[in-house]
């Protein structure tokens, strides 16, 4: 019961945040929630035992799809977010059939390479994507009203959190954790491994695509280097690891902690503040295997 009231309190706080916070805080909270969604989607894929480095790639795909939909086909900006998600999901379906046969490092490096492939495509298909210069829209979504954008991102984040909880609480959880722990056992229990992997891959890619679409609509531009930037891979990975993997609260806690920390670090050292993320990844893997959330949970339980 305490847990439920805490969740309701947090949601109410998040919904009414823009009414009393200043613009800067709203902006920071919006970008933290985008990264939170990416971290959750990365973690959802990791729960099946597959390490994906393709987060930035599908993020960029969604961003490009949304901007092109608005610019060339005059779709409404809110609809374009769905288009970004659907486009990323379709590409994930096509690629997943081949890529998901791979395991371990082969899967990881192929997804990493996919990001570069998407970037090269975006740079070279200049008729459609505007080439190296990218594409700029005249109007940001909601004419750039930060409060409305905040609520849009918040509702998206709630959908993603709910999806992640569905993955944690339904029978999907048993299927994907058994795939993670031992594929042979999973197979002999009658689980269609490939079907589940493809399902999770498509869902997570759609989340990443939608996140990219929202991000692109918020700033109203796409450009190969910054849209497919490795930040959209590095930060979510660091956030999920710090918070604790294989859970919903883990990446959320990690995103909030690291998100505010990075805002502070950006002011402290404008160049190369990303080195902190690298060191954090190394340190959490060596010393804090369960992440901040998992460690606290263990401490509380042992008392």
């Amino acid at each position, binding site marked *: 019961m305490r847990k439920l009231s805490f969740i309701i309190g947090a949601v109410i706080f998040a919904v009414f945040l823009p009414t009393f916070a200043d613009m800067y805080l709203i902006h920071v909270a919006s970008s933290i929630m985008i990264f939170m969604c990416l971290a959750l989607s990365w973690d959802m894929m*990791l729960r099946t*035992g597959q*390490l994906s*480095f393709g987060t930035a790639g599908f993020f960029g795909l969604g961003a490009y799809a949304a901007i092109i939909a608005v610019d060339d086909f005059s779709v409404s900006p809110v609809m374009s977010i769905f288009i970004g998600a659907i486009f990323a999901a379709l590409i994930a379906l096509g690629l997943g059939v*081949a*890529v998901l*046969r*791979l*395991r*371990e*490092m*082969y899967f*990881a*490096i*192929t997804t*990493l*390479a*996919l990001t*570069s*492939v998407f970037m*090269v*495509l975006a*740079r*070279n298909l200049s008729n459609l994507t505007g080439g190296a210069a990218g594409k700029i829209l005249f109007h940001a979504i909601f004419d750039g009203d930060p409060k409305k954008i905040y609520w849009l991102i918040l509702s998206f984040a709630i959908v993603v959190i709910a999806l992640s909880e569905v993955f944690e609480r339904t029978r999907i959880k048993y299927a994907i954790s058994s795939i993670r722990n031992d594929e042979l056992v999973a197979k002999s229990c009658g689980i269609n491994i490939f079907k589940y992997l493809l399902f999770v891959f498509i869902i997570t890619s759609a989340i990443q695509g939608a996140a990219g679409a929202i991000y692109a609509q918020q700033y109203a531009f796409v450009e190969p280097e910054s849209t497919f930037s490795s930040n959209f891979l*590095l930060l979510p*990975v660091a956030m999920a*690891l710090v918070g604790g993997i294989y859970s919903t609260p883990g990446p959320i806690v990690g995103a909030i902690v690291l998100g505010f920390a990075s805002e502070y670090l950006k002011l402290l*050292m404008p*160049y*190369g*503040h*990303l*080195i902190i*993320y*690298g*060191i*954090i*990844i*190394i340190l959490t*893997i*060596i010393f804090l*295997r369960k992440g901040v959330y998992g460690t606290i949970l263990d401490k509380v339980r042992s008392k």
Partner: protein
Amino acid sequence: MKKIMNLYILFFLMLFLVALFRPYAFFYGLQRGSLYSLVALPLALILGIVGLLNLAHGDLLTLGLYLGYILFNQLRFDPIFSVIVIAPILFIIGFVVYKLTIERVLKSHHLNLLLITFGVSITLVEFINLLWTSRPRNVYVPYATKSINIFGINVGAYEFLYIAASIGVLLLIVFILKKTRFGQAAFAVGQNPKGAAIVGINVKLVYTITFSLATAMIAIAASLMIPRVSIFPHLGGPFTMRSFCLTAMAGLGNLPGIVLSGITLGLAEAIVQSIPGYSGWSDLVFFGVLILVIALKGYRRAVR
């Protein structure tokens, strides 16, 4: 055995055809391909013996390049000879990185291994960024820009060193693995770590030395590349990817295959670049082949 012979015949036929129809692409691709395989060989060594994909491989190369740049700039050290200094430094860096990070997670889940090298890679890139900023650096030495005339075609003379070096490093690795006591121990560990430990090989030591030695070998590629590239912090990323691509294409434990596939892909890249209007697409060659090869291999495994 016959299959391998056929592959070699096919390879030389391809070389001949490219040389006949696209002579510029032939020389350029040969040189670039050798450079790629020169960088890929140490990665393959680590992958084969330690069983670890080092995502920080290319960034160690970048670090080596910066070290060479500093040696040249401060002490007027000739880039080619700077390998004498860079190699020991990289050996120590490799040793420290291995002892501090990788060894601690070697026994845990394989995902942790990949993630930790990813973390090392980011840390290295940002460390370089912090120390030397992202401004590109160049080293100019007169002998590196000389060209020679072969059958009426002007090609860079310096780059032929890449070909010699890649073959040299290949022979060196094969010699170490086959003839030295350490190499045979490493070979045994690569095949079966538990069995090697039972017969009294110090597996931990072999892993450490292999990782450090392979890191030191990157110095050879770094010292040769210094005069011919713009040095910037993110230079290494694509090299990691290409190296893995070559290793995957050749198959684990097939060291000569890495040089052959390196040259093949270098030629393919050069041919794409030589088509007017499509030069931007050449980056896709490697990634396309990587995805294709890995997917085919995975598919074959799944069918079996």
